[in-house]
């Protein structure tokens, strides 16, 4: 056996390689198995927290491009297609992604509600409170679905693939019934304020109910819910409209619900959406303002600019206007965050010159809300909270609902005037001189337009008021410059807006979804 040593050598090789008995039973360390979850309060808090991501304020904010407030500078954006009426069951991708995202939130909520009762806790209020938050978030997701798609499957439990392939569309009225009841029930379990600022409160649930009921035209319920918010005594207007969208004003008394962000950690791109190209905005598809919103701001005297004797001077369009104009829009001659002057006029030679760069504005107008010096030069890294619903919105909803119900009493005037007479706005009060319902409807709608410009509600307002075809199907125009003594209005004639009232009030049910579930019908016209 002279080869013995080599056999030993080979056995040694054999040995170091060894045999791992659990080779095929790898356990991941990068995720949490569901088997060990749902045990502690921490799990309940964690699972509810994740659902807040479906508030979606940042991406939803892009819809302002499909309104008469703003224009999609870059026609290639999803919103551009929708605005041009180039929309079918497959394109643009928003049709599917919004649907999928809202059901993702709903599923997370259903999953939470199906499991949270497994948790044992000493705090009897905790689980009901968290359920209230999650139910509100679920209703919030359904509000979007019902508004955008009409009849949608109402799914309130965890389902499997086979069930998902069979669900049918629930009539939209039943969805609104559900939302109304759900928010009422949730509000009952929710506190007036939360220790974790940003969590859903009683006021938030009620405010969302007011909004939801306005979406479906149930104005009595809307008025009641709005009134309930007003009666909570928690909210009031923030004295400075100018500062309402600054970091300093975060979580102020006017904010009922917002999506919370932190610079560097959980950031949004609110700065990039609007910032002038010259202030280092690398985005080449900013959201630009249009002539309609510019013209909507009243004169300081409370008159509309086209009213005789309003004092409006087209050669000096910014003079003597509602202060909210300068708080809401960057216009020619404004000082930018970097100290330079905004000069979009042709031939200015600045980076903001109309159409010179794909990132410079096509209209000469840019929204100003959420533009903060803290975000200058840190693109896509804004930490500003995005307001979803604020007290002024509720006051105007209250007024609107009462007007629609033809219950026009002093409280309606008070609500509107409170908004108009915020300390740094100070527009003349609407006088209670026996205005008709139509007059009052025009006033409150106008007030919503200018007060809430570029914040998101307008997208829903022009649709629920059924005025979208009137306000959208007009040429895209911008600021009117004085060039060599002549007036010259910026425009984008290449872009043709097309809102077809026979179908565009609803989006199509995504084709992919219908391919996977033959029970889903399509909306008319698609």
């Amino acid at each position, binding site marked *: 056996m002279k080869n013995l040593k080599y056999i030993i050598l080979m056995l040694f090789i054999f040995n170091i390689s060894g045999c791992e008995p659990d080779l095929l039973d790898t356990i*991941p360390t990068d995720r949490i198995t569901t088997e060990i979850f749902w045990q502690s309060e921490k799990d309940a808090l964690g699972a509810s927290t994740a659902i807040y991501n479906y508030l979606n304020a940042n991406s939803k904010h892009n819809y302002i491009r499909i309104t008469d407030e703003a224009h999609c500078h870059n*026609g290639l954006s999803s919103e551009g297609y929708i605005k041009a009426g180039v929309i079918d069951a497959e394109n643009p991708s928003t049709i599917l992604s919004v649907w999928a995202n809202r059901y993702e939130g709903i599923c*997370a909520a259903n999953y939470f509600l199906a499991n949270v009762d497994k948790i044992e806790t000493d705090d009897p209020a905790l689980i009901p409170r968290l359920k209230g938050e999650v139910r509100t978030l679920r209703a919030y997701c359904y509000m979007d679905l019902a508004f955008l798609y009409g009849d949608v499957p109402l799914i309130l439990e965890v389902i499997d693939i086979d069930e998902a392939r069979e669900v049918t569309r629930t009539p939209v009225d039943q969805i609104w019934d559900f939302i109304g009841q759900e928010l009422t029930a949730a509000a009952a379990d929710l506190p007036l304020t939360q220790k974790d600022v940003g969590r859903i409160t009683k006021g938030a649930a009620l405010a969302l109910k007011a909004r939801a009921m306005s979406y479906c035209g149930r104005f009595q319920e809307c008025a009641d819910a709005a009134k309930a918010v007003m009666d909570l005594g928690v909210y009031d207007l923030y004295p400075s409209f100018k500062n309402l969208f600054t970091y300093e004003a975060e979580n102020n008394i006017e904010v009922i619900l917002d999506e919370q962000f932190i610079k*560097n950690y959980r950031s949004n791109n609110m700065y990039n959406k609007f910032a002038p190209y010259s202030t280092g905005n690398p985005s080449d598809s900013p959201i630009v303002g249009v002539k309609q919103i510019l013209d909507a701001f009243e004169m300081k005297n409370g008159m509309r600019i086209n009213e005789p004797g309003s004092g409006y001077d087209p050669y000096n369009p910014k003079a003597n206007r509602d202060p909210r104009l300068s708080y809401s829009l960057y216009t020619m001659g404004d000082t930018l965050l970097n100290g330079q002057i905004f000069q979009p006029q042709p031939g200015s030679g600045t980076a903001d010159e109309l159409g010179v760069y794909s990132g410079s504005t096509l209209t000469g107008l840019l929204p100003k809300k959420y533009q903060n010096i803290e975000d200058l030069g840190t693109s896509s890294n804004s930490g500003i909270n995005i307001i979803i619903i604020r007290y002024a919105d509720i006051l105007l909803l209250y007024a609107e609902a009462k007007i629609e119900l033809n219950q026009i009493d002093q409280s309606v005037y008070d609500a509107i005037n409170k908004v108009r007479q915020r300390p740094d706005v100070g527009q003349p009060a609407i006088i209670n001189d026996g205005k008709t319902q139509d007059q009052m409807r025009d006033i409150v709608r106008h007030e919503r337009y200018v007060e809430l410009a570029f914040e998101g509600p307008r997208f829903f307002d022009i649709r629920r008021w059924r005025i979208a075809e009137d306000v959208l199907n007009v040429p895209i125009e911008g600021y009117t410059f004085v060039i060599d003594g002549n007036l010259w209005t910026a425009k984008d004639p290449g872009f043709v807006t097309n809102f077809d009232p026979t179908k565009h009030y609803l989006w199509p049910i995504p084709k992919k979804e219908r391919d996977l579930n033959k029970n889903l019908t399509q909306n008319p016209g698609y």
Partner: protein
Amino acid sequence: MKKKSESRASKYPLQKKILMELKIAVFIILVSVTNLFATHTYSQVVKVTLDMENKPLEQVMDEIESQSEFYFIFNQKQIDVERLVTIRKEEKLIDEVLNDVFKGTDIHYMVLDRKILLDNEPLDEEMKAISMASDLLQEVIRGTVTDAETGEAMVGVNIQVKGTTIGVITDIAGKYSLQSGVDPNATLVFSFIGYQTLEVPVSGRMIVDVQLQSEVLGLEEVVVIGYGTQKRSSLTSAVSDFKGDELTRSPVSNAPQALQGLAAGVIVMDRGGAPGKSEAIVRVRGVTTLGSGDPPLVIVDGVEQSMQDLNPDDIESLTVLKDAASTAIYGSRAANGVILITTKRAKSDGISVNYDGYFAMQKIAFKPEFMDLESYMRLQNWTHVNAGRDPRFTEEQIQTWLSTDDRITYPLPMPWWEDGVVLSNAPQHNHTLSLSGGSDEFRTQLNINYYNQDGIIGNSNSEKKEIRLNTDYKVSDRIDVSADLNYRIKDWTSPSETSVFWDMYHDSNWGVPKYPDGTYGVGTEAGSPLVDVELGDLYFYKTNQGIITTKGSIKIIEGLKFSTQYSLNLYDYYYKRHRKEYVIYDYFNKENIVKQRRPNRLYEVRNKSFESTWNNLLTYDANFGKHELHALLGHSDISHQSWNLDARRRNFYNNDITSISEGDASTQTNTGGDSEWGLRSFFTRLSYNFGLKYLLEVTARYDGSSRFTGKNKYSFFPSMAVAWVISNEPFWESLKNTVNNIKLRASWGQTGNQAVSLYSYFESLSTDNYSFGGSTVVGYRQSTLANKDISWETTTQFNIGLDAKLWKDKIGVIFDYYVKTTEGILLTIPIPSVIGLNAPPQNAGKLQNKGWEIELNYNNTTPSNLYYSIGLNLADNRNEVLDLAGTGPYRYGSMNAFFTIDQIGYPTRSYLGYETDGLLTAADIDAGYPTHDPGMVEGDTKYVDQNNDGKLDAEDYIVIGSEMPHYSFGITGRSAYKGFDLYMFIQGVGEVNAMPVGALREIGNWDGFTLPFQNDYWTPDNKDAKWPRPCDQTVRNSVSSTLWVLDASYIKLKALQLGYTFPSSISNKLHIQKLRIYLSGTNLLTLSEVVKWGIDPEFPSGRVNYYPQVSMRTIGLNITW
């Protein structure tokens, strides 16, 4: 007679060569060879007696040689052997004798042991050393090499003394001589391209004449197969195999490129690529899963590895296993084909040193042409006018632009493409030094590789360093042990190539690359590829890979052998992306900022992985009369772990400070994760043949994977193959003169694919954070549905084949036909979104690949010694989706970009879009012909309303093309004549489409790159136009449609190489055994429809914003010492 008096052109070249060899050996291996210079004393002992008067010097020398073992070495031209000499000496030492003989002449002598050197110059110490070394050699051997068939003398045959580096090459008459003698017991190795290598023992002969047989096209070659080797004659499956030198014929950047076009059914899409990042896509017999497919399994010396970074010079053999009979033994990883690679190991005794290197210049292979200035300006006017605006340029502006030379004030639309602006020629060089040798008991092969490539854009470079040491111990007749070590470091740096090439086509129009004062210019869309290169992101990547393998085998009894192999594969990469900050001011007004980016950011990733492979094989080989049996039983364990960490920070002091901790700590974020997987397998193979006439082979593999759970954890993959060698039947005898060998093969088998993400059966929650009141809060959410039933994809393949050799092996033919069906495709089939979770992979869908392959080889040597060979391979593969489990079809991408579909009856990822029917006419508009969007008018593209429902929508999209090539072919031609060799390689594919996206199909609408022939666009005066009406900032004419489907079939002259091997008379002067120099070019000529679009037909469809393929001009050297 021992006297060497033949005329030589130089002095002692061979000896000098050996010395050099030794010096190198000393230098490299640091082994002392000083003992070779030990003093010999023969001359101090032996005495001679001479008594000669007026005899020619030649006779005197003869007399000395006859009395002693001394012999003379000299050059006849220098030494006058006729000179008359008188000498009388009795019993004198040789020194004294020689002193007398050469006194008064100009002849110098030197005695070195038994050797007497004569020269007409003083002999120095170096000569002494040379001569001492050459004492190892004893005899002179000469002979003639002829072709066995024709009897013609063969020129340029390489003759080597086995186990040494001594070698020569035959001359024009086929003669050779090993001039300073060879050990009479040595063996000579005769080799010549296209001929079988012959080993002939000298057996004391002085003259060794040989006849070489032309290479029998691999008939008795041994082919590497799964877990073993097999004689080609007993193969029953479809494999293509290559020797290393076939792969390195033309300089390549990586091993996949080397494989391109060589094997029928193996498609390599060489996507050229930036230094260090080259992306050659390898597909064996089509794509076996939905999507673009997974790469074949690559096994290097028994261990799974990537082919990408392997040094092609290290490859000894490469085998592509194509049918299931050959691949099934790799079971669950084999569905995409298997490529087996072995690396070079030392074969001979003694030491051999080789150098292979080249230096190349790269230039862009396909450069698009830009529309002429005037046409482009007028086109821009149309885009604006058609969008309802004023013309962009006045007539005066156009004339100014055309007439001026002032390109500062009036910049050109696309100046970036001019030579030297962004693109410039770049060098690439590669060096492999190998040292191989040893003894019977211990042999090693050391390969050292250095590779360096600059990019054709700035800030772009890749460098690779690699050492491979393959060591074999033969510890006894029964036991072999080997230990291999391979370590490589590769790094690359680059700017963001996708940004650079994006800006070469988009967003950079009308820019001045750099103003006279060095200020960067940007285009009207604020883009500049030069800024991207010089100021933009800088990426840095470094990878280390070490593979250590040890293997032992023991012969238990005759025919029965056990072997075990253990291998560690350590791989780590380090990746850094540095986003610099910059501000670019307006050249004309330094107050204005035209482009800026800040803050600077750093993103850094560190990833480590570790994989161990343990293979155990028990093999049994036996012959019983005409029965031949080979059996294999094996086990394999693979265990893989990896760890990943990445970190980000912003706000660094400046662009040069790039260590992570120097960034602003308040901006830091980091992520990371661990993962592991395991594979445990048992497999067997049984091969049997009867008289090499009837062959049968059965294999089976039982694979277990950690990626699956429950009953799906293990799966079974069988195969079976039969073959019939008709030519070995008695009735074939009469046909043997024409078809000397013919074999029919048939096989069936199953393989699997387990390319599914880890833990997909695992129901789990992942973090999804939110923030409350300024602090981040951890949230948990289930994001993906778990699928516990997940299992393997199974590919069943049927193959029939024919191998034939005609006219005494002059022509070889291999033909195969296959049907390959993949079922249970692991696919993330969309699930209804209402379920609210991401879809898990499911086993659904069925796909088929059908095709045939033919390989033809012909080689010949003419009577005048011109050798040539032609290899041709042609294959067709048809890919078709058969079933989508009642779902689908599935669409990917979007109408505005790249839009594909998986639909039953079509190849996977077929292009989807509208059919076009010319352009809309006024009559169409009047008739209410449906349009894609309401703004479309006369002159816009007319899309076909397939379902005639009066509107154009998703229902009207049809399959309009496919990126999956049908035909692929390669032609290699080789020729050798008198030291020259020529290599030519042509390659191509047929029936394949490409689709540009972005600028190339926007015709100026977004101010992008525009091709000259797109000038034929619709205007009221040009209604017969090929291209639609341009309209600024609209995409209505550039959505996916047949208008943009291009025929991407191509034929490429991929490589042309001319080499010259210096005759030994010259190389010996340089102390080199073999010296070959070559000139080579790659990507020399391409015939394809897409070339005029400036697109490389091998590139993927899309925005063409990728680093382009290059064409190389190379000079290279192969040296053997």
